[in-house]
């Protein structure tokens, strides 16, 4: 065959554009190659971007956790519930062991849990302020300043009550009376009466309790917020995941208890809803260039922006309740001026204000932030606040922990990525408290309580005898009712204990020596992932650490498999396309062979062997595949290059995560090009086997027959 190759290639090249059928086949090959090159490049780029997101935001290169765990680890949550991981008792031991492996840079302690927090509604917050003023008055005597604040706060609460009452009246009109609880009506009536407020100063604490228990629950703006948090050593976390940036506030000081909100979560869950909605509208206008008003144009379907504005108009209470008398007046004045309106009702003014359109949006957006926002609390929890988190411990009781919020953070390049942006950070000690493990100081506290109460520990195996045996010393005495630590240690004592805990600085040893759920292992050379995983497994075996070792991809759960799934989908699509191509090429080649029976017969007659004919057909398809495949690959490479330059915008928060930023800039790898080429050539060759076989069966005698 070798000597024939020249003539075969010559004939193949000359035949390339000689037949329309060849152009059809070439077109299919071109499109197929283009698809493989572009699709492959996109997915590969996405895979790498996402791996950056996952590795860089929480997973590290490898995750280890106890092999005794009930569930596999799922850093981004598994179907709503947190994975049930067994604890690793002594993290410092694990850390030392892990860091003895040469390729391990560091191991960061971790634990993920979730809690529901109530952000506290407006009434609660107002009452809390009033309580504080009452406390100041009782402690330090009444200064004129405190007195003024006290009176103003009282007036503010009365105003809230008026809003609630008028709301109640509206509801009475709309709803059947029976759906409104008479006790609530009575409570509101009592709280709104002058008599109640005239008596308030005589016993402020009792009155406050009434308001807290009976009135606050009636204000509907309290939210239950689902809070996912990662307990870790904040310093170590920050060093290992260096894309982290503090946006507001500061980092958690070394050794302190503290909490950092993910900026994305903070903005989405804790910001004043009206403001959040305005932000969303602004974002769609800027990012996607979408207009607000579409309802007049496209068949009356309101745009999302219009929907958001309607919600703002309907939910003005959220703003109104926040404003005391003075601030209400200020807001009214500013709005009157801005809108040129004479209404004196804040609700009406706000409704007018939120009638926004494409012309006035930018101005009103600025006005909102410049003029109204300063009167409001924009966030339900502010940097500097102490956050109370209650969570179910592993054993099922509710544990609560107070942590100061030091600020917000984000990962560079993933500012809008929902998956990375919903995980907040907490110090290790608070995490352990919340998870229900006894810390050293808890043990100490239990000891103190025991001494104080004269309690004695008895061994479990001897419990029956001790309690009920003949010479029993222990007499059970019980007081009905539960002890609520919060109530028992109220006022100054409670505050002092809180302060003390929050100020306490924990040493590195205290952080490390303790229970942890999992650890992120950061590698020096990420390319040696598999080998290092094996090394860790061997180590676990050797030192009986009983560890489960997974790659970042596995640790990310379903999310980690996303790109693999997308790749599978692409390959299936490519497979189907090529099956179709196979059939088409096969048919086209059959037709081409039939058209050339005379020529092939002539070649056979003048002495070409069957192998030569086989070579002829195969060479032609391979040349065709190479020429059109190369063209397709070149065009594909051009498209990828162009996309790499302009980038593909992330359409939503999820893609933000997959793209590891607002835009994906795909790039081309040699592997992709080679894969595309090999696939195309293989498909072309396979689809031509049968026509080529038929061609070898053309009898030389066909040369003698007149050409049709």
């Amino acid at each position, binding site marked *: 065959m070798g*000597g*024939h190759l*020249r*003539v075969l290639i*010559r*004939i193949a090249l*000359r*035949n390339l554009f*000689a037949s329309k059928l060849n152009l059809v086949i070439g077109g299919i090959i071109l499109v197929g190659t283009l698809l493989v090159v572009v699709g492959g490049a996109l997915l590969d780029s996405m895979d790498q971007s996402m791996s950056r997101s996952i590795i860089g935001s929480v997973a590290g290169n490898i995750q280890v956790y106890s092999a005794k765990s009930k569930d596999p680890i799922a850093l981004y949550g598994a179907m709503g519930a947190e994975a049930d991981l067994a604890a690793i008792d002594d993290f410092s031991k694990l850390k030392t062991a892990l860091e003895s492996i040469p390729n391990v840079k560091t191991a960061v302690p971790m634990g993920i849990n979730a809690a529901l927090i109530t952000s506290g509604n407006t009434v609660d917050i107002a009452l809390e302020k009033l309580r504080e003023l009452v406390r100041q008055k009782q402690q330090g005597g009444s200064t004129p300043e405190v007195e003024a604040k006290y009176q103003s706060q009282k007036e503010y609460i009365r105003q809230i009550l008026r809003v609630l009452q008028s709301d109640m009246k509206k509801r009475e009109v709309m709803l059947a009376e029976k759906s409104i609880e008479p006790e609530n009506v009575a409570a509101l009536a009592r709280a709104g009466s002058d008599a109640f407020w005239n008596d308030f100063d005589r016993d402020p604490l009792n009155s406050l309790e009434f308001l807290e228990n009976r009135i606050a629950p009636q204000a509907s703006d309290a939210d239950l917020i689902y809070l996912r948090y990662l307990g870790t050593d904040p310093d170590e976390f920050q060093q290992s995941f260096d894309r982290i940036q503090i946006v507001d506030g500061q980092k958690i000081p070394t050794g302190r208890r503290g909490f950092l909100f993910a900026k994305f979560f903070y903005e989405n869950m804790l910001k004043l809803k009206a403001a959040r909605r305005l932000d969303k509208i602004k974002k769609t206008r800027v990012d996607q260039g979408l207009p607000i008003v579409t309802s007049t144009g496209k068949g009356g379907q309101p745009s999302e922006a219009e929907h958001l504005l309607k919600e703002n108009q309907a939910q003005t209470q959220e703003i109104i309740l926040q404003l005391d008398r003075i601030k209400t007046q200020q807001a009214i004045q500013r709005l009157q001026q801005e809108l040129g309106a004479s209404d004196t009702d804040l609700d009406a003014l706000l409704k007018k204000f939120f009638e926004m359109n494409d012309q006035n949006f930018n101005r009103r957006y600025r006005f909102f932030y410049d003029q109204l926002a300063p009167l409001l609390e924009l966030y339900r929890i502010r940097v500097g606040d102490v956050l109370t988190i209650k969570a179910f411990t592993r054993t099922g009781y509710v544990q609560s922990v107070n942590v100061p919020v030091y600020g917000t953070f984000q990962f560079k390049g993933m500012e809008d990525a929902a998956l990375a942006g919903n995980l907040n950070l907490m110090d290790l000690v608070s995490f352990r408290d919340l998870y229900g493990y006894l810390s050293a100081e808890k043990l100490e506290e239990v000891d103190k309580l025991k001494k104080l109460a004269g309690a004695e520990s008895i061994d479990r195996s001897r419990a029956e005898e001790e309690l009920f045996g003949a010479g029993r010393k222990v007499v059970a005495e019980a007081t009905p009712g539960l002890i609520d630590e919060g109530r028992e240690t109220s006022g100054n004592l409670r505050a002092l204990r809180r302060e003390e805990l929050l100020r306490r600085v924990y040493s590195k040893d205290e952080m490390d020596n303790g229970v942890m759920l999992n650890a992120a292992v950061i590698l020096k050379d990420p390319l040696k992932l598999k080998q290092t995983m094996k090394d860790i497994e061997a180590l676990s075996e050797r030192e009986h650490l009983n560890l489960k070792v997974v790659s970042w991809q596995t640790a990310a759960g379903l999310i980690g498999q996303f790109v693999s799934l997308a790749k599978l989908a692409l390959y299936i699509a490519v497979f189907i396309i090529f099956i179709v191509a196979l059939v088409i090429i096969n048919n086209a080649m059959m037709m081409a062979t039939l058209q050339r029976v*005379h*020529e092939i017969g*002539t*070649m*056979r*007659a*003048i*002495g*070409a*062997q*069957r192998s*030569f004919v086989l070579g002829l057909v195969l060479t032609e398809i391979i040349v065709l595949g190479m020429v059109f495949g190369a063209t397709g690959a070149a065009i594909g490479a051009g498209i990828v290059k162009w996309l790499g330059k302009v980038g593909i915008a992330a359409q939503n928060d999820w893609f933000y995560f997959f793209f590891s930023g607002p835009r994906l800039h795909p790039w081309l790898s040699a592997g992709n090009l080679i894969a595309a080429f090999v696939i195309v050539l293989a498909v072309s060759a396979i689809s031509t086997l049968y026509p080529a076989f038929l061609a070898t069966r053309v*009898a*030389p*005698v066909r*040369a*003698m027959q*007149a*050409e049709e």
Partner: protein
Amino acid sequence: MTAIVSLSDVVRTYRLGAVAVPALQGVSLEVHAGDFISIAGPSGSGKTTLLNLIGCVDTATSGTVLVDGNDTQHLSDRELTDLRLNTLGFIFQSFNLVSVLSVFQNVEFPLLLQRRLSKSERKDRVMSLLDQVGLATHVHHRPNELSGGQRQRVAVARALVTQPKIVLADEPTANLDSVTGNNIIDLMKALNVKNGTTFIFSTHDSKVMSHANVVIRLADGKIVDRTTPGNVQLKSVAEVH
């Protein structure tokens, strides 16, 4: 003279469905080296079948076909192909040139299949033949750029390039006007005289027949006549052009 082609009692039957159609019914024939044989007869008389059997593109149903001493009945497809390549040359009614190859490449093609000659030897051989058929100036032309007569001359050159012992031509003049047809026959005759190559060609045309030194007439698959025309004009190769 020894017979270069020898047929004895050859029968060739085609099957058309259930019907057996006899194309040749017991043909015996000897062709000697250097013969310039014309096979004549009406359509359907078996001319092409006879040529196909001699040309090793078909085999007999019964009887023996010896080509250059080889019993074609007992040769494999590969051996038959080699025989065609090395011993036989073909000239077709409709020229049968490879349309995507140039004149030079068409003529060179059998040499490439043979893989015996070096590039320069091939070039010399091809050019000398193209010179003999008067197309040395058309080497780079494609077949569709040539007239019918020119194309058939290319085909003649291609048939002779391997220096075959026998050249078979099936109605070589049928697609040509009479002047051009005569020129082609004259060319073949001149080459026959010059190289001693055996030519066997079929034709309807009595004028063409008159050039042959042996004319074999077929009717209904049988040889009905074998004549040797007296006044065969011999022309030199140079005069043909």
